Structure formats: C-alpha cells, structure tokens
C-alpha cells in the first residue's frame, strides 16, 4: 500500500512537470516564447497547485483513508481529462483573447496562464490527499513523510527530462500531452484499486 502511494505521488508529479513543459510548446505558436509566457505558465501552474493542495488538505479532513485515496483518484482522472482536451481548445481561446492584439502583455499572460490552471489544480488536489493517507497508514512516520516528498521531487525531475529529451521528440507536443493524460488516468486506476482494497479492510476492522 505504501509503495502504491509513493508510486502515485511520483507519477502525478511526473505528469505535472511534463504537462507544464508541454504547455510552453503548445503556447509558443500562438504567443511566442518569452519570459512573459514562461512566467505565466509556471506561475499559473504553481498557484493552481498551491490552491489545489490547500483545498486537497481540507478534503482530507475527517474521512477514512480509503475515501482519501478515492478522492485523490477522482482528482487525477479529472486532471487527465482536462489535460487531454486543453490542446484542442487553444485555437478558440486564441481567437477570444490573443487575436485582437497579440503583443499586449496582459493578453499574452492571460492566454498562457489560464489553460494550465484547471490541470494544475486537479493534480495539486491529490498531493495532500496522498500525504495524509501516508501519514495515517504509517502513523506519522518522518521517513514516510520524507519519502512522499522525495518521490514527488523525483517524479518532477523525470517528468521534466522525459518531456524535454524524449516525448516531444518522439510523439510531438499533442502526442506527448495525450501520453501524460493516459499516465494520469492509469494513476487514478491504481489509486482506486488501493481504495477498494482498503475499503474492504476497513470494513472488516469495523465489523471486528
């Protein structure tokens, strides 16, 4: 169970960083690649992530570990669906926001910053849910807390490198985004499986 949570943390961190870098490539043909676009993407992602972690923490209060994992799975699957549809919305979003004046900074920032928000929020929701599940399962072990954070950071490293050095070159930007969505979906399935197993155990414990 602990290994499953660590794997889920790493996979979602992988998806988050990889999607963030893919966004820069998706945005570039519309708004170029500048400090404005990069900062808008990074800032939007991290703000969404921060908001997600805050809300995710609230969502983890007062419920069983099985339900915590179930909520993390829902966050991952919604993030996956949103990641998959973002590229196809960019042309319409461009017409609405950027087309009237492509060089206006506020338009560039809005255009680049808004699309990553929902995905970052969903992936951010999962982080405190997974941390809470780990803390409860290991009874607050410091090693476990450290491992969750470490797996998150390691997943981020792999996500960044795999996207830059492999996925973009092999599958192109849209293909890479779809692969991220598939990976997030697979993580959701893993979490649901763990929640299902825990639910059975918790039910047995309550009955006993």
């Amino acid at each position, binding site marked *: 169970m602990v290994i499953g949570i660590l794997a889920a943390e790493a996979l979602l961190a992988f998806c988050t960083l990889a999607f963030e870098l893919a966004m820069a*490539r998706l945005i*570039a043909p519309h708004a170029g*690649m500048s400090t404005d676009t990069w900062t808008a993407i990074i800032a939007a992602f991290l703000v969404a992530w921060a908001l997600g*972690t805050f809300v995710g923490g609230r969502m983890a209060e007062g419920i069983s570990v099985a339900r915590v994992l179930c909520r993390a799975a829902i966050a991952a699957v919604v993030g996956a669906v949103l990641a998959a549809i973002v590229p196809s919305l960019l042309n319409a979003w461009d017409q609405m926001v950027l087309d009237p004046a492509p060089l206006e900074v506020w338009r560039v920032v809005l255009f680049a910053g808004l699309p990553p928000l929902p995905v970052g929020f969903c992936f951010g929701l999962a982080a405190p849910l997974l941390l809470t599940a780990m803390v409860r399962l290991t009874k607050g072990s410091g090693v476990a807390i*450290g491992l969750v954070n470490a797996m998150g*950071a390691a997943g981020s490293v792999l996500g960044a490198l795999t996207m830059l050095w492999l996925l973009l070159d092999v599958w*192109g930007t849209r*293909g890479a985004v779809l692969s991220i969505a598939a990976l997030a979906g697979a993580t959701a399935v893993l979490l649901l499986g763990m929640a299902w197993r825990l639910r059975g155990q918790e039910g047995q414990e309550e009955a006993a």
Partner: protein
Amino acid sequence: MSARPHPSLIILPVVTFCSAMAALALEIAIVRLGAPYVGQALAPWSAAIVSVLLGLALGHMLGGLVGGAQASVHRLRVSLALAWFFAGVAAAAVPLLVAPVTEALSGDQEPARLAVLGLSALVFPSCVAAGLSLPVALRLCVKIADGVRPGRLAVLLAASAIGSVAGSALSGFVLLETVGAVGLARGIAWLWIALGLVILPWHEVRLPLRLLALLPVVIAALLSFRSHVGKACWTETRYTCIQISDKTAQNGDLLRVMALDEGLHSLSDREHPDRLHLAYAALVDKLARLAFVGSATPRALVIGGGGATLPRAWAQMQPPVRSTVAELDRRVAAEAADMMWADSPNIRTIIGDGRAVLRSLKHEPLFDVVLMDAYRSHSVPAHLVSREFNAEVERHLTKPGVFLSNVIDRYASLHLAASVAATLRQTFPVVDVWITDADGAGMTNAVIAAWSDVAQALRPQQMTVDVTRWNAGETTHTEQVIWRRFSVDELVQTRGLCTVVLTDDWAPVDRLLAGRSVCAVPAKKPVAP
C-alpha cells in the same frame, strides 16, 4: 474561548515559503551565472532543473530521517537552522566557483557538457539542505499541533508551492535586472542564513552554541566580499548577459562587439555602417541587396535584432531600407541604439517574440527581405522554424523577396540546417543553403536563402566576402571567406543526411542541433539490371 495557534505554526508557513522561494531563485541564478560560458539552452536548463530537484528530493528524504523517529521540537528546530545555515553558506560560494569550475571542465566539445554538469552541481548542496526543510517543517507541524491536521499540512505544502512561484517570478522579472545573477545568488544565501537565525530556538541553546551560530554569518560575509566575479556583463537583462567590447580595425576604425551570453552576436563599424565584418552578415547583405533592388520603398523585417548591424547598414542605402526589428529583449534593443549606433529613423523596433510580432502586423506582403537571426549558439526557438511559421513569413513577403535564415549548427553534421531548409522547401520554390569551411569543425553559421521567385534569385556557386577576425592578442586582421551554395538535395546527398519537416507540433530542434539525426537515411534501391 478560542485556542490561539502556537507561534511556530504561524512562523512555519512563512519560513517554508521563503526557503522554497530561495531554492527556485537559485535555479535561475545558476543558469544565468553559467550563461556567459555555456549559454542557456536546453542542456543548462535541464541540468539545473535536475540538480535542484534531485537536491530537493534527497533533502526531503533526509528530512524524514533527521533527528530520529521521535525527534523533539527542539531538535527539529536546530536541524532546520543548521540546514539553512549550510544552504546559505553553500549558495554564497556559488558565484566564486562558476569561473574556476567552467575553466576546469571545459573541453573541445560543443557545448561543454562537463562544464554544464559541473555548474549545475554547484547548487546541489544548497538544494539538499533546503529540501530537508519541508519534511522537517511538516514534522514540526505534526508535533506542535499534537497530531495530523491535514489542513495545516496543506498550508505548508501550499506555502512551499507559492514560494516557488514567487522565487521564479521575482528572479525572472525583477531581481536579475536589478541586482544581477551574482547579487541574486548572494541575496539567496543571506535569506537562508536569516531563516536559520529565525528558526533557531535561541532561549534553549547554550551561550557557546549561540556564538557558534554566528559563524555562518561571518563565512557568508567573507564569501560576499569580492565585488567582481566571473565574466563582467555590460548589463544583465531578463534574458541575457550583454557584453560589449571595442576593437580597432586595421584601418583604425572603431569596431564594437556585442556578445549575448556565450555567443558573439553583432559587430558594428562606427565610421562605416555599411562595412560588415562578420562572415554571415556580409553574405546576408549581398543576398538581401538583390531583393531590395527595384523596390521604390525597400523594407525588411529582422527577427532577433541584437546589435542591429544589418538594419543600420541597410538604412545607409539609397533609397534607405526601412527595417522593422522584432527584438524580445527591451534592453538589447536599447543597447543596440545607444552603444551600437543603430539609432535611425529607418529602424523601427518592436519588442516581442518574432512570431507574435509577425502576426501583429498586417497580413499582406510588407517586406522585400525577412531575416531570421534569433538563433543562439546552443538553442533554437522551435516555433520559429516550423512550416506554419514559414507560411506566415511567406504571406508577408513581396515578390520577388527573400527569407534569409542565419542558422547556427554543427559543421560536422548540419542536421538542423538541412531540416530547416527542407521545411522551407515546403513553402518556397527555391531554397539554398550557404556554407563556409572557414569556421572549422565546431559550430558554424549556415545561411539559408528561401526565394519567393525563381527568376529573381541570386544563385552563384560561391561568393567571397571580407571579414574581420582577431586573435588572442586582440590584433584584428582582414581575411576572405568563401561561401559555397548547395541546394537542399545537394546538401543531403553530399553529407548523407536525412531531413524532416519541422512543424508546430513536432520540431526536435535540440536533438538536431546536438548532431543527432531523427530519421534514417533512405537506402538506395539497387538498380534493376
């Protein structure tokens, strides 16, 4: 009666925020500190990201172990303070180590991969120490609140994430331009040391240890003492370190060189604007002049202005060419006008990404020449080489007109230049690749000329231009450089290359620039007897 939170529960999110901010700012600082030596393309950025995140990951693991499973609040606070002291002192040493590490690890290969790795490794110790802080803060939170409160843990995670945002945004938008990369690294060092001083439980520590806690302050002060370290930038901007230096030509003219990070970008002649001393600029000038001939109001679009040497030269023609320059960096444009003497009513600079500038202009044939000069030695903006971008350029080009692209590639492979040319062939009827042997086996300029009208294209087999070079003793001399013309097919056949069409969705430019092909050369079918 409302329960007041423990003071540490208020302090912890604040210090976590600051530490995360410092770690992300250090990532940006190391890339910029190394940029004058190794550029800031994919490799330095990837190496820095990996170094910082791996450091944080290792720190996170150690943070779970530090002080043992039953560590007291006191022990955790002391551990946190020690970690931040170490992070601060290590960060203060980084600016001093950049030049020696680069010199020690630079080899003949381009880019110097060992130097890139060595530079990024400089921030690893600080990041390990900084990474330790989040789990320790989480454990402190659990200890002080006497149990798991997901809401409080979430606040710490959110503080860490928001700190990362603030660190990147503040560094990129404000601090690099105001205090420079060295100042940024030193500021980060002092921030971490200050955090250590704040979190240390002073009232529970003995006097000798209190005095010992001042040691990091002394070390950081000593490390910050040297005011000039590494290569001196004329000015630092959001994007680049601008270096400006003067040379004297053989005839006594003053020449001014503008280098952006690791690469020489422009060389302007104060007395004779029309004399172009760099080989690629002289060739581009010869090709462009043909496209200007016959136009009553010749116009050019230059993407990636740099020192604006060519627009300045073209402004001297009769009739003068009116150039629109798309420059991403406001400060580079200002230095071009002030320091490189490119302040002319015939030069209009628009600040912005080349593609965004192009789409902001009227969608009609506006320019006789479009020059793409936004490549760096080790980086290529993928969105400025795609088929879709070329189509946009073609819509803005008059007939006859020419789209000239200054590609920097490896002489030994030329994978990037070949694929850029093959992509242009999808849009333009005639595409030539101009190559010189004068740069040797390392990085070289390849000028790609895409003509909109076959009949009006300038296509001799070779052209010779005079260029100015200087040796280590800074003495300048003039020499002749021969450019040879290849069609795309000729280049592919003579070099045994395969080419790909670059699109907005798929443009593996970094791989091509690294000299690695992305496709297989089609095997020649045996001819049937």
